[in-house]
């Protein structure tokens, strides 16, 4: 089985890789590009731990083939901070103690960032429904939701 050669952009950098046709984007990110920030919790799109942005759209990387990244733009957790500066969501998650074990955190941050880009002033209910595809077993979601709402307030400049 010949490997597929893919040219793509990851976190703004031009990237090339080889992958098997069956490899998912998540497999490629973790095993070929060694970007292990996106996690595999289920490989079936039910937990959101592998959330990434694909051409500006929030998706589960486990449900995208590596080959599909050709010519497209991928954003992962590794690209969320800008140099030394954490994104407000990253800061707020830390301030609010919105993580305990931290394995779901990259997925939540990517998903929350996508929410605030689309809706800068979400209600608590809107936050909860948007993030329903991200499972957390440690926090019970309370502090995560508070952190997202607080980050939204800061980003609106209120």
């Amino acid at each position, binding site marked *: 089985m010949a490997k597929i050669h893919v040219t793509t952009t990851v976190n703004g950098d031009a990237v090339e890789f080889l992958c*098997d046709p*069956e490899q998912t984007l998540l497999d490629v990110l*973790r*095993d070929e590009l*060694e*970007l*292990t*920030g*996106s*996690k*595999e*919790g*289920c*490989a*079936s799109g*039910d*937990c959101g*731990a592998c959330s990434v942005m694909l051409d500006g759209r929030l998706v589960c990387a486990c449900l995208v083939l590596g080959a599909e990244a050709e010519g497209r733009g991928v954003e*992962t*957790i*590794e690209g*969320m*901070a800008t140099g030394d500066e*954490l994104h407000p969501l*990253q800061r707020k*998650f*830390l*301030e*609010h*103690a919105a*993580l*305990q*074990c*931290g*394995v*779901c*955190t*990259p997925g939540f*941050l990517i998903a929350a960032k996508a929410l605030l880009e689309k809706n800068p002033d979400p209600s*608590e*209910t809107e*936050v*909860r*429904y948007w*993030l*329903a*595809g*991200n*499972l*957390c*077993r*440690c*926090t*019970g*979601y*309370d*502090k*995560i*939701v*508070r952190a997202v709402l607080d980050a939204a307030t800061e980003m609106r400049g209120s």
Partner: protein
Amino acid sequence: MATVLKTDTPAPQSPHALKWVGTRPIRPDGVDKVTGRAKFGADLILSGMLVGKVLRSPHPHARIRSIDTSKAEALPGVKAVVTHDDFHDLPSEFVPAGEMLVNYRDMVRNVMAREKALYEGHPVAAVAATSAQIARQALKLIEVDYEPLPHVIDVVEAMRDDAPVLHDDLFTAGVEPPPTKPSNVAKRVEFAIGDTEAGFAEADLVVERTFDTKPVHQGYIEPHACVASVSEDGQAELWCSTQGQFLVRSHCAKLLGMDISAIRVTASEIGGGFGGKTVVYLEPLAMALARKSHHPVKMVMSRDEVFQASGPTSGANVWVKIGATRHGRITAAEAVLKYQAGAFQGGPIQPGCMAAFAPYDLANVKVVGFDVVSNRPKVAAYRAPGAPISEFAVECVIDELAKELEIDPIEFRLENAAKEGTRAAYGPKFGPIGLIDTLRKIKESEHYRTPLGPNQGRGIASGFWFNIGGETSASINVNEDGTVTLMAGTPDIGGSRASSCLMAAEALGIDYDKVRPIIADTSSLGYTFLTGGSRATFSNGLAVNEAAQQVIKEMCARAARFWEIPADAVTWEDGMAKPAGANAGDFEPLSFAELAKMAGKTGGPIGGHAHLNAQGAGPSFGTHLVDLEVDQETGRVTILRYTVAQDAGKAVHPAYVEGQYQGGAVQGIGWALNEEYIYGPDGRLQNPGFLDYRMPVASDVPMIDTVIVEVANPRHPFGVRGVGETPIVPPMAAIANAMEQATGIRFTELPMSPPKVLKALEAANGAG
């Protein structure tokens, strides 16, 4: 937001106001976790690494007649194949692992089946190959000759005389005379005080009920994962996601016949455990494959493997009978608990029995428990193992008694609540405890006074967990610039690094930012028992404090030497050595940083190293309050509002204490409403994934309000009690009690899923 209740009991050892303990700084590992830099079990990449995969039994119960691995071994890219032939059989030996016991003879069989496959998913062989694809192909080439046997899943069915027997050498312990026929009942335990028959005779009202619960999984988001590497001289390195790297080391050494010192286990960051990662599954297999293939081997479970083959907690059948006077005083209480242990004995029956009536001051109690095997994965600890099940049943019956006697459920509990000096139903006398405080806090809460709407109900329940201490080591090494490196041995599941640093900073009198922690591997620190039993903050506090006191003592000695005065003429205050007594004021105080800088010249590196067996863990009591609404036409339940009040002794980092309360409550909500293992008549698990194993999602739950009660634990320098486990104990009963108020129906089966609720509603309305 949480409110913190201060009581009159001061924390010992803190004459000054606390500077660090009780604050909410950013955790030291936080930035790595929000940037994706933190490395979890599956994130390690070693060059030349092979991929390991496990072949698992498709049968719930089968004799293994033969295994032929030759075709798999011949497949190009396959570097090693292991079966039970690669593991020596071990004699029966029980050792503690977390809050439960494990048996090595059972463990060697659980990690790799020998005579029989005892559950669907039981490992039968494992391969290591150069790619995942080749490994998967290799598994298909392994030929196993199974003789399927009749299976049994449910606990009550497994206890029947005609049930298929899993182990023909299992004879019920704790029964007189000892049985001559093997069965699935591994043991019977009994706890009793007083005279329950006399007690029931005094009661004006007796309520008895039987409850059924299903097995539920810890549900950690990170599947089991490890990387093993064994060199040609038999020295091994193991990287794994675990709650206890020292236990992993002991178990692997035993299973692979190695010296303990030959294995160096590093705990990766851990993506959730809740008790489920206190045992080994992949680690011995990865090590065996690494040893055989002479390459590092990475093994990661898929999500369905996690459900099929790692231990959930027991499903159970529980009978409870409680009698009370018309004024609400309990006169007698009994329970019979039948817990499923899975394929091998050793479920949490003992703690389940001991915890059942622990919140109450009772003179007459009798609890009988049965540890029952069945063809399911061996159970592993799940947050307060055994207690959520027994206390669910008890708290439901308590509620029923209160209702029938027309006594407010909080008042009923207050009337019977355990307090300081109460002899616990399971034996010891309680020191200062916070149950009554939590009941009062709930009663006074705004939540409790808010009126309800139609189809809504409100329920409360209390809960308890013992908490443990255990062997703990900690090292504090002072760096030349006055910063400090703290080495702890308990993997950080929920922010315990932050708590350890807060306690170290407090004890030493230096800034929190000057303390940097690591979680040490097994070669770099003394033996430390696992993260579990709500012991991390408690035990590390003791160890860190002792190590800090050693550092302070040495610092004072160095100052004394510098000032040429006796060592006992130096005191330590606010992070500085000061001359005291007759020499007071003669010299300028020396700061921690100054003393650190001159350490080399005054005698050498300064450090404190504590090795202890933490004693005096204080139990944590909690009371939960929940409002819910029932859709009468579909049976769907919506949780509207939730409040947790729980005694933390002293909240070292309040945000992480709140997090434990909230996380445990939401796990309990899932357990109450939707989570269960669903088996088909073929004994196979039908829902081994997050789609149909229904854990709460963000839109399923409201904010979880928290009230931190602080009744200091006098045996701890800061008054700390463990808090991690108690939060999962009350939710199921609180929700069942709220359901009763909303519908008039007492549900006795968990989960209270919509089809069951609708069926009961229709039966009650006569429309059935």
